[in-house]
């Protein structure tokens, strides 16, 4: 029976309830040797494996995940996809990613529930609106959709915000990217894993990398909790723990690990039809398909590997929510959790070669890992196969700080904990 998912397959299984659905991926024992081994079975690692097989025909590939697929940051984010950036390099890269998102469900034969509900970034003073207009112009010059909204248009689209004269932050307008939106994060992990598996990639769970096998200073494989695996090329895609894994290969990186929290309220009827970001403080929200309002904000502000946040940040995010939408004070918060982010000194990632030959790095994702996953895998696969950066990820090199090539999108300076 074909493993392809379709309406016919659903009907066939409905008529034959004794026939189990086939496993989405095989979970084989690791082989002794692969052409390429990817450390990390998150969104980026799985996407890389998929595009290695699909775009470059490299199928003798293993993805090593220390836990289970979907257990890391790919299942811990706020699921937002967008490409409203303003410096060259970021703009083109994230737009490429959004274009891949647009066809992803068909490409993977897996419903990633991509929803182009639009993202609206609110301006709370006239200067902010000018800045958003500039960003919108940059986006449009790059062929990306962007619309500047005045206060009246925002009131029509988002009638539930506080527009009273007593509102702490008045809304002056907004920048909207209609093609931005959300995707189902777990489905992205499962979809890439299944699609890569179908092309011949081995997805190996519960396999923790404990060291690198080196040959004359070149990476030649990995030591794992399930034995040694030789590899022609080794790729790291473990954002959150990038420093930890890279240190095993003797690398010291421009990365500090920080916790970023996310929050979900009790479910309510459909109300928030877009992704909404606020200008007064880093705060963004959307409504999940289950009805919960999903909130996100800043990192806690100090380095930690604990996947739990501090109460103070919860309090400040809820203050943002209530300030923007006073009715939220009547909702209960049902869950909040933390994910560990690689924070870099300029807020931008690494998709690059490393000083160790045959060792490649994908990490430093800061706040933007989820939306980047398709383009990240796409360009990382190119870098691994060609031992060279693609035009789209040339700016995400590891030595950019030595060469004055910072990608400081927000102009915040060289502090990991302030990005």
């Amino acid at each position, binding site marked *: 029976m074909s493993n392809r998912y379709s309406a016919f397959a659903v009907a066939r299984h409905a008529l034959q309830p004794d026939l189990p659905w086939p496993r989405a991926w095989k979970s084989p024992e690791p082989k002794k040797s692969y052409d390429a081994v990817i450390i990390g079975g998150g969104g980026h690692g799985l996407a890389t494996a998929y595009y290695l097989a699909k775009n470059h025909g490299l199928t003798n590939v293993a993805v090593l995940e220390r836990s289970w697929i979907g257990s890391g940051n790919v299942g811990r984010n706020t699921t937002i996809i967008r490409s409203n950036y303003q410096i060259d390099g970021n703009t083109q890269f994230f737009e490429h990613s959004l274009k891949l998102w647009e066809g992803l469900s068909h490409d993977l034969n897996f419903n990633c529930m991509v929803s182009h509900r639009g993202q609206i970034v609110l301006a709370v003073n006239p200067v902010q609106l000018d800045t958003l207009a500039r960003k919108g112009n940059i986006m449009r010059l790059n062929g990306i959709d962007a619309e500047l909204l005045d206060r009246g248009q925002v009131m029509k689209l988002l009638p539930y915000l506080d527009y009273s004269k007593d509102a702490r932050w008045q809304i002056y307008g907004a920048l909207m990217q209609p093609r931005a939106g959300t995707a189902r994060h777990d489905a992205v992990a499962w979809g890439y894993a299944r699609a890569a598996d179908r092309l011949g990639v081995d997805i190996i769970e519960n396999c923790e990398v404990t060291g690198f096998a080196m040959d004359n200073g070149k990476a030649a494989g990995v030591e794992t909790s399930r034995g040694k695996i030789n590899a022609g090329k080794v790729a790291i895609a473990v954002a959150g723990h990038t420093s930890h894994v890279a240190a095993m290969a003797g690398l010291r990186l421009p990365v500090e690990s920080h916790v970023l929290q996310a929050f979900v309220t009790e479910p309510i009827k459909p109300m928030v039809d877009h992704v909404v970001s606020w200008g007064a403080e880093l705060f963004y929200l959307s409504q999940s398909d289950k009805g919960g309002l999903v909130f996100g904000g800043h990192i806690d502000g*100090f380095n930690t590997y*604990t996947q739990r946040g501090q109460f*103070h940040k919860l309090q400040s995010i809820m203050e943002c929510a209530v300030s923007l939408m006073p009715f939220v004070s009547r909702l209960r918060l049902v869950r909040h959790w933390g994910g560990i982010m690689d924070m870099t*000194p300029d807020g931008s990632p690494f998709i690059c070669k490393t000083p160790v030959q045959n060792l490649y790095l994908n990490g430093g994702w800061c706040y933007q890992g989820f939306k980047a996953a398709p383009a990240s895998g796409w360009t990382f696969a190119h870098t691994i196969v060609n031992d060279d950066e693609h035009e789209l990820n040339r700016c995400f090199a590891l030595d950019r700080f030595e060469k004055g090539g910072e990608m400081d999108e927000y102009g915040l300076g060289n502090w990991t904990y302030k990005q």
Partner: protein
Amino acid sequence: MRIPCPHCGERDYSEFRYGSDATKPRPPHGTGDLKSWHDYYFLFDNPKGPHTEYWQHVLGCRRWFKLTRNTATNEIGEVS
């Protein structure tokens, strides 16, 4: 997390500001060695375990001090 300020005693972490790794030696001014400045400024050990770091009690006495904290558990050790 509760942080013991050497001057004010134990307070909530929200009164403090994190100031990054305190173990990196700052190169002497005027050395002109870009590599050592790059490494000092941009690279981090980022250990999963004990980490000595700067904090400032911004909403209190405003004193800067060093703190050893386990980044895997947030358990706080020595303060100086």
